[in-house]
Structure formats: C-alpha cells, structure tokens
C-alpha cells in the first residue's frame, strides 16, 4: 500500500507555477460512452470492405495537411499543447487563406459526398454513429477531404471544410481530454496510410502511440484512470476495424492494453509461465503484483476495474466462483469467499437470458429464472438455441436429439416447432418430428411405430396416439428401455423429486438468487413510549424462550439495579410523606399548633435517616449508598417502611406521579431485597425497572419451542424459524426518532401502549401537559406514517390490562378526550350477553369492553392512515402466558404474510399447466 505514495498520481498535485486565470485552464467535457462513435464502427466491418476503405474517423493530421502544416504532429504530452495546436489550426482557417492550402472542393461535390454519406448511414441499418450529429459532421468532413485531394476548386467548399472542422473540434472537446489524446493516433495512422504520402509517418505515429499509452498507464493511480482505460478499449476496436479484421457481431470488450503474449497487461513484465489472473470480461491477464490494483475490490468478481458492469465472457462461465491459488494467496479466506460469492451471484454475471433461445424465442429474465430454479433444470446451461417439449419435459439443442428430460410444464419460450430436432422419420412426439435414434429407441421399447403415428407423451412416460383417449403404455416403464437409452445416449427421466403440480410454487419468490443467508432471523421490532412496558415484554420473551434467561453476572448487576431502585422508591415516598405532612398541617391550620403531629409525621430517629437519604438523592449520588450501607441500613429501612406514616403515604401513592406502580412489589419485600445474599428471581427481574438499557437497543434471538401437536404436524420442518426481537425505547414520547429508518428489514412492528395511560399526563416537547394516551396516539401515527414502515405489518399491544381494570373502577375511560364517546353497555339486562361476550357465564367486564373499545379506536385510526388491518392484542405484561400468546400471534401474522403470495401463485400454476397441455 505504501508503494502507492511513490507513484505520481493526480490526487493532489500542488501547483507551483505562474498564476493562471480560470479561462486558460484546460477544460474537458465528461465522457458519455454512448457519444463516442464506437458502436457505429463495428457494424461497418460487417458490411463491405468497400465502405471500409472510405471509413474515416477523425483526422487531426489530415487537418494539418489540409492547412499545410505538415509538422503539426500533435505531441501526446498534454492537452494544452494539443489545444494550442488546434488553436493555431483554427487561426489558420480563420484567416481563410491557409497559405499552402491546395485543397478545395467544388460545391457540387459537396452535395455528392453528403449523399454518399447518407447512403452509408442507410447501409448501417440505422445503427447510427453514437446518435450524434457532430460525429456525422466528422464523417462528412473526412469524406469530402478524400475527394478534395482529387479535386481542386473554389473556396466555397473550403468553408464547408471549415464547418466540419469546427464540428470536429467540438467532438474533441466532448470526448474528453484523456480521450482526445489517445484517440488521435490510430485514426491518424489510418488516414496517413490511406492517403499514402509521407511513408515515414506511420512508424512515427506508432512510436508516439506507445508513448501515449505509457503516459496514460503511469497515471493509473489518478482518479481518472477508469476513463482512460475505457477510451483505450474503444481505440483498439477502431484499430481492428481499420486494419480490416472484422469483429464478431457482438461487441466484445477487449483489454485496454495490447501487449506481447504472456506478459502482464499492467506492468508488461513476466512471461507466459508466470501465474496470472484473468479478467472474466476482457481476458486481460495480470500478474501477482498488479492483480489487486487492476481489479480493485472486485465487487463483481475477477474483473478489471474498467470492466465492472459488463457481462462476462461466456467461455469463462464455467470458472465462475472457482478461485485460483493466486487469489487465495493475496486475500484472506473471508475476502476470497466474498469475492467468489459476488462473482457467482451478482446480477451482471448471470447468464443473459436473451442468449438462451428456447423454441426460437429468446428468454426473458423471469423465464430463465424459472428454468434454472425448477427441480430438474438443464445442466450447465450455455447460450444457444434449444428446443423444449413442455408436455414431456424433453430438452435438447436445436436440430439435435433430446439431451435431457427436465421438469415439464415450465412456462418458458415459444411452442415447440415440428422440425425442432431436425427429424426426418415422420413420427411425431408432442408435435415434434423425432430423430432416427429416438425412433429406434421407441421400436426397441416396444412402441408400435408403423404408419408414422403422432404420439402424445406425458412427463411420466405414458403415451397415447393423438386424438385418442386411452393410454397405450409407458415408454420408460420397461427396465430394458433405460438400457437402450443408455446405449443410444438418449435421456431417461430422473426420479421425480416433487409430485407434479406444485413443482415450483415455492421457488417463484426467489427468481433472483438469494443474496442473504436463509437462516437470517425474522425481525420483530418492539417499540413503545417510555412506561409502556416494552421492557417487560422483552424480559418475558427472554424468560420464556431462553434456557438461561439471565447469566449470574447479569443477575448480580440486576440486583444492584433493583436495590438502587428500591432506595429511589423510598425517596419518592419520603418526599410525598413530607408533602402530605405539610398539607395536613396547612389544612388543620394553627388550631393544633402545639401538637403538630399528623399521621404523616416520622419519628426523629428515622427522620435523620430519611433526611440524609433525601439529600444524597438530590445530590445525585444514590449509587454510593447501598454498596457500603445495604446491610447496615436494612433494619432502619424496614422500620421506616413499616412505620404508619409511610404506610399512610403509600396508601395515597396514586397521588405521587413519580412513583411507579411496580414499586409496591419491591417495597413489600424490603427485608429480602436489602439483604446481601439476595438473588433476584425471574419474577423480580420482570418487575424491576431499568434492567434493560433504558434508552437504547436490546435484542434477543429466540425460536418458539415446538409444542407436541405442532411437532406431529410439521415433522418435515426440522428447524423452526428463528426470530429476533428488537426492543427500542423511544425517549420520552418519541419526538425526533432519528433511528426509525434503520429498521427497514423488520417484518412486524409490535407497538406497545399501556392501557393505563388514559388518565395520566405527561409534559410534551412544547412544555404542555398532555394526556399520555394522546401522546401514544401521536407517536403511533408518526411511526405508521413513516415511509420506512409503509408496507409493514403492525401488531398493537394494549399492555397492562390488569392495571387498567383496577383503574376503571376509579376513573371512567371518558376522561381521555379521545375516548369521550365511550358508552359502555351496562350489563343489567341479559340480552347483552349474547352480543359481545365471549364467555357465556357472565357479561363482559368493564375492562374487556373498554379495551375492546380502545382497540377499535386504534384500528380505525390505522385503517384511516393506511387502509390495512391492524392486529391488536390485549396483554398483561407480567403474565407469561399472555406475552407468549402475543408473540405467537406475531409469528402467525408473519406466516400469513408469507403465504399470501403463494396463494396467488397457485392459481397461476394451474393456469400455466393448462396452457402447456393445450399447446
């Protein structure tokens, strides 16, 4: 890598010279490959050699001769010098005199030449000259030049020359600087050869050309080298044509640099015995030192950097993905695997479908995919013409006997032609005249073939005569037939892998090769506002599906967290206690001034402790306390907790907004938690807050354990699908979720909402106090309408149903504005039982009705946003069964989602097989 620095490259060359104005800087236009007249040139070679002789390209030297400046052989060193030359040419023409000009063309001729030119264009079948007017100008010019040497006439035509010259210039510019330099050599050489004077020039030019390439080569470290190489390729094609070596019809990409046989194409060193890597597109060979430079990071396998994006040389298809020893030496194992995988699988390297003709019809992409992914595909498919008998599955090269029996009923190509295998026996199978060998086989296997019958052979080998119903027998049925086939080298059907009918229903989805590993887990995104219980569900999933949900280390740290939580709960209670005490004192006024004891008062001994606790809390170093003090303070804390003042405060806990509902679970077992040998149980962990990183991301990989009946059902399904539950906690209420677009590969979004939020308030981004349910709704809306999640399935979890039920007894659901039209049917009369109850014994509880109502509200909201169906599940986060059911529900949603396309496709297969048998 360090050797790079030694080479001159134009990454940043500091300019140290006289100041230059912007205008004098050389400019070059970007190269548009389509504008370089290459495509036009190739077809010419196909046509006639007569045209070839008049096949001009671009002639800077001709120009110079035209103007008599014989010494202006453009130096290959810089654009600038070339520009300067051009300028001088321009000036010469501008003066209109061109002292030594001897060439002028008559106007009449000009017409003639343009006529010729248009003829030429016609001959080319409209292939065009790169589709550009300017290049035709080039041609016109050179044409007229050819003649102009023969004629001499007035200055009118000279103006025409000038015009085309201008066009030429334009062309140069548009071809880019790198191009203009190297492009001129071959053409100038050709033209000088053609004109025949200055015999010494060609060799000179040739020398120049080599120098030119050398220059460009040495610049390969610069950022422009790709362009240079492209240009070189074009030139080579030009040379070939101009030298009268017609190319094949298809434009074949040639290596950028022509070298001696056996040497490396980049460094020109080595001989034919040195190990080299070959570019799978252009056949360029590179030695060990150069291969990585020439091929770069190999995003499409072993291709020169310039060849990336081009289809590969078909003769090399067999070597795709087969690594050479050299590459293994250069790259590490992982990289080699990656490169080889890319080489085999990347889209450009796939067999171009149009090269494969089945029954005279070039395939399209989908057809090729079907052909290659069928259970019994043709082996080593190469470009070429094939025939395919859809009914029996016989497959062969056009004009030849069958070579294989592939899967029948594939909807590829056109109907089979009668003369597909060039038979002359008069016997037909499925509309194809069979070959002699086949007829022999049929006779040997006992099929009556007298009277040139037309057979109808199915893929299972059963045959019938055309127009008759009864099956006459099975061709492949006899044991001897297979032997006969082997002797005559005819194919026999391979064992059926799938029963007919549903052969490729499951392969359609993979018409494009699967780049991703099949075993990648399906991702479920669990998202919700803070306090919605996402972490509880996450922990439940861990406990439910993991053998060891928490390691000992984790438990140790969780213990730490639980204890610290406990102190913070206590702190909140103490604060509340003080507040209530104040209020109580205020209420009673000064009437009992001597005895200011209220029910909230704490005895002095505990008071000192509680004050200290509050102080450390405010200071923010709560963590310092319990490491040292857990054991020491445990009795005090317990006493404090059991004190009537605290209990009284605790009773009014719903007035303390900051006290989480789970706190009671821990507060009630204070002694146990504060002991040093406390190990949190799974339930403790479930209840504990802040165990999963509170504002971040946590993932758990799991698979659903198969229950017994499922095992029986799906015995063929060996490994159950793996899932990944990703839990992300939105900060606050989900404003500015920058990370939402990171989860585009998620399959189901599980959105979690706490039902108990309906009477709670929180401060939103603008500092206003807003109902939490409305904030939830807002966040839900923002996620559902987020472009990343447009096509995703949503599962809404209405969490904390247990808390919700309790709450409803105290607060009506209508206290939330959004739910103001909730009119529960009070179940006094028995009629209502039938309407909405799922348990017959008693009418639905208030909680059920209310949760149902909330679910409908969200479903309506979702439908109005997306017009799809929202899945809703009511959950008690702390109840394992409830969470288990919900996650299984998510799995069902996924499976349903996967099956949907198959349903559609089944109809298609029926249709296609029908059409196949009709043909």
């Amino acid at each position, binding site marked *: 890598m360090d050797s790079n620095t030694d080479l001159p490259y134009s990454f940043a060359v500091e300019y140290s010279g006289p100041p230059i104005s912007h205008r004098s800087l050389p400019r070059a236009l970007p190269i548009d490959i389509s504008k370089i007249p290459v495509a036009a040139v190739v077809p010419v070679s196909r046509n006639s050699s007569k045209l070839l002789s008049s096949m001009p390209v671009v002639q800077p030297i001709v120009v110079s001769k035209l103007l008599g400046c014989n010494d202006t052989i453009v130096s290959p060193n810089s654009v600038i010098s070339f520009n300067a030359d051009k300028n001088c040419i321009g000036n010469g023409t501008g003066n209109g005199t061109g002292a030594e000009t001897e060439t002028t063309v008559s106007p009449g001729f000009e017409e003639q030449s343009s006529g010729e030119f248009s003829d030429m264009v016609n001959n080319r079948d409209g292939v065009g000259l790169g589709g550009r007017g300017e290049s035709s100008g080039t041609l016109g010019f050179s044409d007229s030049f050819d003649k102009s040497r023969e004629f001499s006439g007035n200055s009118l035509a000279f103006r025409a020359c000038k015009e085309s010259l201008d066009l030429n210039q334009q062309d140069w510019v548009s071809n880019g600087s790198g191009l203009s*330099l190297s492009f001129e050599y071959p053409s100038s050489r050709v033209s000088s050869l053609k004109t025949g004077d200055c015999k010494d020039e060609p060799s000179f030019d040739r020398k120049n050309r080599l120098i030119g390439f050398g220059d460009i080569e040495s610049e390969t470290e610069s*950022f422009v080298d790709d362009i240079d190489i492209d240009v070189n390729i074009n030139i080579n094609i030009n040379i070939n044509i101009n030298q009268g070596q017609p190319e094949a019809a298809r434009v074949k990409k040639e290596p950028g640099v022509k070298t001696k046989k056996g040497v490396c194409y980049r460094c020109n060193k080595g001989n034919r015995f040195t190990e080299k890597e070959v570019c799978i597109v252009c056949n360029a060979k590179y030695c060990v030192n150069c291969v990585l430079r020439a091929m770069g990071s190999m995003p499409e396998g072993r291709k020169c950097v310039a060849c990336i994006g081009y289809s590969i040389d078909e003769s090399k298809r067999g070597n795709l993905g087969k690594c050479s020893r050299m590459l293994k030496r250069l790259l590490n194992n992982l990289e080699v695997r990656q490169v080889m995988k890319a080489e085999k699988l990347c889209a450009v390297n796939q067999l171009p479908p149009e090269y494969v003709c089945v029954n005279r019809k070039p395939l399209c992409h989908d057809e090729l995919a079907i052909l290659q992914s069928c259970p019994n595909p043709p082996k080593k498919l190469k470009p070429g013409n094939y025939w395919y008998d859809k009914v029996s599955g016989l497959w062969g090269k056009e004009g030849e006997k069958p070579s294989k029996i592939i899967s029948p009923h594939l909807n590829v190509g056109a109907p089979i032609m009668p003369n597909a295998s060039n038979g002359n026996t008069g016997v037909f199978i499925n509309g194809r005249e069979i070959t002699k060998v086949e007829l022999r086989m049929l006779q040997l296997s006992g099929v009556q073939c007298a009277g040139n019958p037309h057979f109808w052979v199915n893929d299972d080998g059963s045959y019938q005569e055309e127009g008759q119903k009864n099956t006459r027998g099975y061709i492949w049925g006899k044991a001897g037939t297979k032997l006969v086939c082997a002797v005559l080298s005819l194919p026999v059907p391979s064992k059926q892998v799938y029963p007919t009918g549903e052969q490729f229903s499951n392969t359609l989805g993979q018409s494009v090769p699967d780049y991703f590993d099949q075993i990648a887990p399906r991702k479920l995104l669990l998202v919700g506002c803070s306090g919605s219980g996402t972490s509880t569900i996450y922990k439940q999933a861990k406990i439910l599906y993991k053998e060891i949900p928490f390691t000992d280390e984790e438990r140790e740290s969780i213990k730490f967290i639980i204890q610290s939580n406990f102190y913070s709960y206590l702190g909140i209670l103490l604060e509340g206690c003080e507040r209530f005490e104040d209020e109580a004192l205020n209420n009673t006024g000064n009437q009992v001034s001597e005895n200011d004891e209220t029910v909230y008062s704490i005895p002095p001994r505990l008071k000192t402790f509680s004050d200290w606790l509050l102080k450390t809390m405010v200071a923010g170093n709560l963590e310092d306390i319990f490491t040292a003090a857990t054991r020491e303070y445990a009795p005090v804390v317990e006493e404090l907790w059991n004190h009537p003042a605290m209990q009284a405060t605790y009773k009014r806990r719903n007035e303390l907004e900051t006290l989480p509902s789970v706190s009671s679970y821990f507060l009630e077992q204070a002694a146990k938690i504060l002991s040093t040998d406390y190990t949190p149980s799974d339930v403790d962990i479930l209840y504990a807050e802040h165990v999963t990183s509170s504002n971040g991301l946590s993932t758990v990989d799991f698979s659903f354990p198969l229950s017994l009946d499922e095992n029986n059902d799906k015995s063929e399904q060996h490994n159950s699908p793996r899932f990944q539950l990703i839990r992300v906690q939105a*900060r606050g209420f989900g404003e500015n979720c*920058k990370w939402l677009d990171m989860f585009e590969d998620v399959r189901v979004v599980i959105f979690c909402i706490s039902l108990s939020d309906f009477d709670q308030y929180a401060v939103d981004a603008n500092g206003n106090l807003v109902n939490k349910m409305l904030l939830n709704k807002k966040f839900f809306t923002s996620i559902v309408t987020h472009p990343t999640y447009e096509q995703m399935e949503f599962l809404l979890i209405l969490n904390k149903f247990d808390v919700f039920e309790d709450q409803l007894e105290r607060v009506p659901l209508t206290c939330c504005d959004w739910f103001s039209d909730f009119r529960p049917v009070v179940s006094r009369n028995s009629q209502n039982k039938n309407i909405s109850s799922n348990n017959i014994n008693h009418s639905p509880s208030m909680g059920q009705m209310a949760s149902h109502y909330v679910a409908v509200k969200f479903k309506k909201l979702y439908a109005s946003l997306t017009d799809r169906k929202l899945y809703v599940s009511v959950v008690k986060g702390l109840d394992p069964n409830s969470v288990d059911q919900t996650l299984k529900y998510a799995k069902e949603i996924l499976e349903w989602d996967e099956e949907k396309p198959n349903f559609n496709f089944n109809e298609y297969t029926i249709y296609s097989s029908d059409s196949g048998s009709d043909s």
Partner: protein
Amino acid sequence: MSVAELKEKHKAATETLNSLRERLRDRRSQLLDTDVASYAKAQGKTPVAFGPTDLVCCRILQGHTGKVYSLDWTPEKNRIVSASQDGRLIVWNALTSQKTHAIKLPCAWVMTCAFSPTGQSVACGGLDSVCSIFDLNAALDKDGNLPVSRMLTGHKGYVSCCQYVADDDTRLITGSGDQTCVLWDITTGLRTSVFGGEYQSGHTADVSSVSINGSNSRIFVSGSCDATARLWDTRVASRAVRTFYGHEGDVNPVKFFPDGNRFGTGSDDGTCRLFDIRTGHQLQVYTPHQQQQKGDSITSIPSVTSIAFSISGRLLFTSYSNGDVFVWDTLLAEVVLNLGTLQNSHEARVSCLGLSADGSALCTGSWDTSLKIWAFGGHRTVI
C-alpha cells in the same frame, strides 16, 4: 411554598424567558442589516463557475450490503472508513478502492464512525449507546473479526456522532441521544466531562452532531434536535458558551468553517446556515431554489443530511435526503453544481459526505449502499 406556587412561578419564569428570547431575536434581526450574499454581491463577486469535468465521480466504493450511514477520511493518508447498516465498518483505500479492513460490529445499528488522527484506529457508535474503538493493527480473533479495543460506555441514549480531538488519539467527543455530549479519555475509557444533561444548561433534545474547531481544539459546537446549535468549551462543561437559534427544524450536521470563527449547520427544515461564533449572529441562510418557489409546503422539503466546507471555505457541499448533493458558493449563497444530476449520481438518500484532508476529493455515502468519490475529472498536467 407549596408545589402549586412553585409551578406557578416556574411557568411565569418560562414565559419571561421566552419573551426575552423573542426580544433578543428581534433585536438581532434588527442589527443584521445584511447577509454575506448580499454584501458579496455588492462587492461585485461572481459565483464560482464549474466546468463539467471539474467534479466527476471517479470511484465507486462498493462492498456494503446495507445503507451507508457515515464516513470519515484519515487526516494524512487517503483512506476512508464507512459505517453501514449491514453491521460493518469498512476501511477503504480511496485511491485503489480496495478494502483494507472489514470490521464486523457487535451491534449492527451503527450511526457514526470516525478515523483517529494517526489513522491507527477507528471509532464508531450507534443504537447500542456505546462508542466502540477498534485498533486497526490489532490481531484478528479466531473468527477473523477485529476485536473491540475499547468500549466507551456511559451514554444513556444512542451515540449519534463521534469525532476525535485533532492530533490526539486518546480523546474523543461524542454526541448522543441522551441530550449530552461527552469528552472521553480513551486510554482509561472514562468520561472526562459531560456537556449538557439534567442539571446543566444543555440541549433539550437529542444531540445529532458535533464538530471540533480546527484551530482551537478546546472549542466545539454541537447540533441538536431542539433546533439549536450550541458552542462549548471543553474546560467549562457546566454550561454552553453560546446557543445559536434560527433553524426551524432539527439541526442534523454541524461543521466548523476552516478558519474556526464560523460554523455551518444543516437542518430538517431544508436550509443550511452559517453562524459566527464571535458575534453569535447568523451570517447566511442557504435555501435551495425549489424550496423557495414551493413556499411553505413543508411535507416535501428534503432535509439536509450532511455538510462539508472546502479547504478554502468558498464551497459548501451539502447532501439532502432526496439524493441531491449541492455545491454552494458560500459567499453568494448560490448553488453552483448539483452532483445529484451528474452521471453516476446516487440513487437514494445521500447520508454523509466528507472532504479528504487535502481537499482534493469529496466522498459521499448513500443509502444505495455505495460510496462515491468525486474529484477533478479533467486531465491534469503541470504547465
């Protein structure tokens, strides 16, 4: 004093604060009689002209299989580190487009990456709320992965950006979704100081980016989803030196101007702004044309995802969520080139861009999984 009273007081104080802020803004706009563009125009400056090959795509770095989220250049060598949602960091040689390292990350949701000043290590951070440091010279572990050499844990939210302090491989500043910025000591893995947070006057929403002053590494600026940018002195962590208001949406990127006295910001409101750190004034707004015409149809405004200044500061490169990359003339506030309309432009959102240390090449990373290097495309000769 009861809680209700306190709340009342708090509310009153907030209102006062807001009205004062309003007055301050009015006063500022009164004092600002011109912006850079109109002044430059008055001085007869003409926009920088771009030839068609002055900036062309010369390299396409392919190798990621997920959206590219972030990239960074080494200060001295021409190497790039890029972070992608496929869970890999790739270190590229920008000249040969070779990969020198492919680092598999423990957490795939990476948002940012940075090269250390010596080029010996790279840092990255993401949704795991951890900033991970990888020593590029370390030996691979048995699975062929580069091991994490240091985990900087302590953030309570995702790590949205990280940048090394210039010429110091051991100090790093991160910005995070927990509304704070943190200066880390990498050798110990501990926080040297925390900027912002609960008890301090810091950002009130997620920090989305930081940029350290090139000429004075004690000064850095941070942009945040609270639509402000804040200037910090690493010696004074308690409060921001200055807060810059002006944007109407989340501030995504911030970047110091080469001279260190100004900085640029880009925002979800589709504009970029130039602020002066000495006066605290906004110097210029860079509003794309189509947006000016459309007026206030907010829905379709592409947000600014990343910005970079040229070495001289005359050019400002900005990338947008719709795949555009504009080159602005900083002085005249005119778009002089749109890389999104050139050949080989990206097919999806351009998420990050960066200028090489010598200023000769621009690298853009996109959600179409590729990175592209743009540089002078003409034939370079010494005259």
